[in-house]
């Protein structure tokens, strides 16, 4: 068994095998789409392809209803129309395997051995969830590759490239914008602790620590990339681009059932005067946790970003299973530093799946059988939040950073 694992996790074997598995599933998916009623390909893939078709006809991709992404994605997928519809899926699986490679490189930079790094990579490369998602035609792997690329550049101190990739990833999906605070905190000038801790002076020192060349370079390049892309697409597609790519996601109040603990509350109060205040109240826990996480863990950027995204997704007003991939791609960076036993780790994993299962049950009965299970879905959503919080607490409590041995004692 040990020999098999060692063989499988040889670099070339692992990466080749993971690409081949994905390619085989893409081929199978094509067969299933043509022969069976239940399609393998995700509906999103058809949305992307339809939007790409509009672009090839010289029109706006937003003519395709429910296309709520950057035009860049539709542009990238225009070979779906010119060459073959499978092009997009090939692109997604390549980005998926690339994400595995980036995880490997980051782990090496953080001091992990080759063999250990490959074993951890295998958790992503041979994981059925990302395999399924990218072979079905979801574009999440592009963003995973961009975020991991940003982290690799930050780890290797290639700030300009990191800033370019960061600007690009924020353009593609808004959630990486939360990484701005920990990145800023990690790039500021760290000084030796001064005796003088008087309020005003230490505040001034704190603000001044942000004013350094590196942070300025990163901020201006990232903002520049983001603004350039926004300006370009605004010029091409107008207000609709801005609304569908950004505003819709920021103000999204999907009252239909989803994993979010806020779903039922937002559904029942959708048309009431309280709706705005409740939306704000729902935003507060997210904001507080992101601020605390940024301050507490900014020196370990990978861990901080993982926490940021898990918190963002778990406490968000809308949560679908696609969002899980946003933090799952960062989990392999965290795992080598966890002092949890295998049994504990598997236990947490089972708990996470159980939480989803308890939600999916009543949701199925509501949507496909027509029972009124709203109350059960609501309770399952709350339970899933509690489970996610518990898992995060376990991860935080058992995390041992290797590079910075300083750790504040538990007060």
């Amino acid at each position, binding site marked *: 068994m040990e020999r098999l694992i060692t063989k499988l996790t040889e670099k070339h074997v692992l990466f080749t095998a993971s690409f081949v598995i994905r390619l085989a599933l893409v081929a199978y998916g094509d067969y299933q789409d043509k022969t069976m009623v239940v399609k393998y390909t995700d*509906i999103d893939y*058809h949305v992307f392809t339809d939007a790409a078709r509009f672009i090839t006809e010289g029109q706006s991709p937003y003519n395709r*209803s*429910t296309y709520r992404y950057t035009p860049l994605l539709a542009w990238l997928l225009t070979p779906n129309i010119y060459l073959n519809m499978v092009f997009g899926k090939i692109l997604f699986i390549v980005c998926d395997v690339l994400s595995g490679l980036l995880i490997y490189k980051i782990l090496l930079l953080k001091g992990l051995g080759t063999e250990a790094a490959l074993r951890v990579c295998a958790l992503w490369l041979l994981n059925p969830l990302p395999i399924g998602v990218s072979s079905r035609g979801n574009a999440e792997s592009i963003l995973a590759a961009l975020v991991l690329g940003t982290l690799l550049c930050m780890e290797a101190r290639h700030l300009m490239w990191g800033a370019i990739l960061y600007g690009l990833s924020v353009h593609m999906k808004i959630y990486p914008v939360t990484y701005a605070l920990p990145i800023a905190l990690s790039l500021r000038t760290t000084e030796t602790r001064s005796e003088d801790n008087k309020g005003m002076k230490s505040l001034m020192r704190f603000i001044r620590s942000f004013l350094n060349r590196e942070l300025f370079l990163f901020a201006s390049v990232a903002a520049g990339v983001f603004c350039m892309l926004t300006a370009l697409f605004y010029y091409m597609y107008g207000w609709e681009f801005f609304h569908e790519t950004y505003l819709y996601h920021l103000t999204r109040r*999907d*009252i*239909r059932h989803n994993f979010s*603990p*806020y779903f*039922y*509350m937002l*559904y*029942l*109060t*959708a*048309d*009431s005067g*309280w709706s705005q205040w*409740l939306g704000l*109240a*729902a935003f507060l*826990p997210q904001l*507080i*946790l992101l601020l*605390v*996480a940024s301050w*507490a*863990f900014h*020196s*370990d950027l990978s861990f901080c970003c993982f*926490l940021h995204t898990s*918190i963002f997704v778990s*406490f968000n007003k809308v949560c679908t299973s696609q969002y899980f991939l946003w933090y799952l791609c960062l989990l392999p960076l965290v795992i080598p530093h966890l002092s949890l036993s295998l049994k504990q780790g598997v236990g947490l994993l089972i708990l996470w799946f159980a939480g989803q299962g308890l939600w999916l049950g009543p949701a199925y009965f*509501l*949507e*496909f*059988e*027509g*029972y*009124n*299970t*709203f*109350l059960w879905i*609501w309770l399952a959503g*709350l339970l899933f*939040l*509690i489970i996610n*919080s518990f898992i*995060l*607490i376990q991860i*935080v*409590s058992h*995390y041992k*950073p290797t590079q*910075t041995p*300083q*750790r*504040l004692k*538990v*007060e």
Partner: protein
Amino acid sequence: MLPISEVSRLANEKNENHCGLLQHWIESSLVSMEIIKRGFHREVETTVELSPDVHSGVRVLLLHRWPRGVYVDPYQLASLSDLSDWKIILDSTIDLEGPAHKTTGFVTFVYPTPDGPTPTLLKVTIPIHGRYHEPSFVAETFTSVEIEPPELLLWTEKCMPLNNVEPHDVMEAPCTHHNSSSCQWVKQQHQQKERGPVNVQFPVGDGSLCGPVCGGTLLVTMLCCVALSKHMWEHRII
């Protein structure tokens, strides 16, 4: 050679015969509707039994007037129409995500056999989806959406212009699913339908629980927030 007046008199007679036949066909046709499946995703199965002596040149059109509580997915219909022999056109763009009280009803034109001869028994199955409805504040767990059976319309080029088809109405509608021209169709009178409208039930949220749900949600989220913040702060890395 017959004189022109004689030719036009014979033509009129033939026209009247065809129109009479059309009137007879529409009177003797039966339309029935059944809604299958459960939950938010249903299928509306319409069966049309035409009179056995219907000529091959007759075109059939089914006109559905849908309430705002349901919608059809144009993209799903487009992929379905590749696999089935019926074609459909919609009268307006469909909002795929809006709740019922913020959308309007719409009309669909279904052409069961757009090309080829018309068989006497037609079956069309259209997938429909329920919209989310406003929560109920009177402790009702379901809301009812009434779906009317479609109206049957017939057209034949041999009865043009349409006259003497009382008591049936004449209606303008697209000639084919290409929607390039408009024709005059004969609409069947209501009494020929086998059943009346069908009521479809969709679950709705319980508005009377608004207080406990809001309170419970905010309490649990705040508690999780506090617990997680506390642990993150205790284990912070300098």
